[in-house]
């Protein structure tokens, strides 16, 4: 019988087997990463040769109010996604967790927006929210509420809110499916026992469903947070950071700096900052969530 406590051999032959994977990793991950870090320390317009900039790009990033505010916007967006996507997805999963006729169709309909590309969804909703000819304002005007018609995506106070709503419409179904699959794994007898003990629906949800879904909730929150920081396509297609940076998120601002304004060195520096922020948040969140999972005896 094999001794499981024996250390795994690390001889040269084993390294040879790992070499192709390591080579690919170095070529497609480490090398671009290293190059990116280098370009972050340069003034580079993408056309001419890069010039060494030292820390100038990073110092500029710390005084770039639009970039700093983009983190505020993304945090607000993430907070909204936790409500509109994760929470709403959970509620829908619980409400639609039934084998009764029509429920699978409703789950399918609720999930349908997930299969649309984010860019297509953004363009679609931009038409719906158009000030002059959009469905929303046309409806308001047709029912005599023309004064309520607003340029929803051109006002700082409503633009971000509508992006969050559209994001919720798009992704709540995704989280619903995750929660729905987990709900199906919860033994029915737990609910039967709770009902015998006199627990109502809300009590069953808080005492059984939520604790049993804890791991899924943690994963969904992590997905929402990291996905939020990487958010680009919906912001780009719906508002492109407008009006006046009110919906600017790090990714849209980075694209503008790097490509619209030909400041690739600065854009890469902003990307490095964003990567550090997201990495720190992810590591911190995973540490906290792992600590919560330790079973103490």
């Amino acid at each position: 019988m094999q001794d499981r406590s024996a250390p795994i051999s690390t001889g040269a032959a084993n390294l040879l087997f790992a070499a192709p994977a390591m080579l690919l990793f170095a070529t497609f991950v480490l090398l671009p990463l290293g190059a990116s870090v280098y370009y972050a320390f340069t003034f580079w317009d993408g056309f001419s040769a890069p010039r060494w900039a030292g820390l100038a790009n990073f110092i500029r990033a710390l005084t770039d109010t639009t970039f700093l505010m983009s983190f505020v916007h993304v945090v607000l967006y993430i907070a909204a996604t936790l409500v509109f996507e994760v929470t709403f997805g959970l509620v829908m999963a619980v409400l639609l967790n039934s084998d009764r006729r029509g429920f699978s169709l409703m789950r399918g309909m609720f999930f349908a927006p997930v299969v649309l590309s984010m860019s297509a969804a953004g363009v679609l909703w931009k038409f719906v929210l158009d000030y002059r000819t959009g469905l929303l304002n046309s409806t308001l005007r047709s029912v005599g509420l023309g004064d309520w018609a607003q340029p929803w995506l051109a006002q700082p106070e409503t633009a971000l809110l509508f992006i969050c709503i559209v994001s919720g419409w798009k992704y709540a179904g995704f989280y619903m499916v995750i929660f729905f699959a987990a709900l199906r794994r919860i033994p029915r007898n737990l609910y039967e026992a709770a009902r015998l003990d006199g627990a109502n629906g809300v009590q069953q949800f808080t005492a059984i469903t939520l604790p049993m879904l804890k791991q899924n909730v943690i994963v969904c929150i992590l997905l929402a947070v990291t996905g939020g920081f990487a958010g680009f396509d919906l912001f780009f297609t719906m508002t492109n950071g407008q009006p006046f940076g009110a919906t600017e998120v790090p990714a849209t601002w980075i694209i503008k700096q790097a490509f619209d304004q030909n400041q690739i060195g600065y854009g890469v520096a902003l990307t490095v900052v964003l990567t550090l922020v997201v990495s720190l948040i992810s590591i911190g969140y995973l540490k906290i969530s792992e600590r919560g999972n330790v079973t103490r005896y």
Partner: protein
Amino acid sequence: MAKKFTLATKRLAPTTRGLALTAATAVLLLTTAAMAQTEVRFTHSITGGSSRAALDAIIADFEAANPDIKIKEIVFDDDQYSNQGLITQLKSNEVPDIFFEWAGYPVQRDVAAGYAYDLSEAMAADGWKDSFSPAVWTDGAGTMVDGKPYLVPLSLDLTNTIWYNKKIFAEHNLTPPKTWDEFVALTKTLADAGETPIVEGNNEFWPLGNWAGHIAAMVVPPDEYVAAFKQEAKFDTPAFEKALNLLVDLHNVGAFNKDMQALGADPAMATFFQEGAVMHPIGSWLVSETGNLADEGFEYGQFNTPTIDPAHPLANSVIGTITGLVVHKNAPHAAEAIKFLKFLTSEPSQVKWAESGQMSPVQGVSDKAKLDEQTEAMLALMSSASAIVPPPDNKYPVPVAEAFYQAAAFAASGEKNAKDALVWLDETLAAMGKQ
């Protein structure tokens, strides 16, 4: 698979076998011809409208006259082209032989980076250079660097003029204004009548920004204007404040569409053609989109930004630039590329180009082409102008121009007053550092 093919061949009737042989020979000949062709890669951003149709027709003529050369067009949407499309191609291993470019700063940048081919020798041959209007080879035209030509001029672009709906003007007994005060009064009349006086698609800042650049050039002393854009002086001056206050005045009379900052440039143009607004400040390229976007019988005209300060040296200027084509310094087929460009800028080709709504830089073409009424009016406007002001993003570093454009948008939308917008602009440029 091979065995099945053999069996099937054996069963073919003699006539069918003859046809198959003929087809195979034809394919072989075509393949051989294709292999002998030189492919000239030509990248640009002319995606549609009558100008694209004219360009395709000229290319077809060229290929018919030169069967050994094939022009391969690589086309991007305008914004995509200037943001990522061109740079990606210039950096690639397979560079385009010819690329579209704007005169001025972009050409200087291309030359400095080693992407542009010195056309001095080619231009000197066959009187090519002399076939163009002398104005395109002046220092300020931006087609040359250190006295050497790098850009083959293709169009004279009026970067901004104010297009208006003739029918709605007539309904309100309005005529194109001569002065800025008349313009504001006219705008107020339209707004009070429930019209949207001006539609602007400023989602990307440059449409209003270009216009604001012209307004500022007509108000601010020229030295002060240049120094500010070169980051040698501040923008927060009484003259720039006066310029932005003109936009504030327009905002205050309800001139602009409410969704200005959410609307793109193309949807704004469509709104104008759909009679959703009375006026639309944008460039000469609107003309080539008329066929696609306007209904039959849509009547429109244009007027230049009205005089603001008659004593200003640029009071009667227009804002415009030259667009054209650059041969890549490392073009695999530079000789063929130049041959094509000579064909493209020859008089017969340019007549077609001009008739598609473009203002040709080639001498004599305007007289020979059957020009659209709008193109003729724009040519008249350009020829009567005292000076041509280049748009800031073609003359100065793009980040500086973009920051100015945003400050202008702040003022035009009422988001900030003129003074605060300029303070914001100077602070933004200070944080940005010298570009």
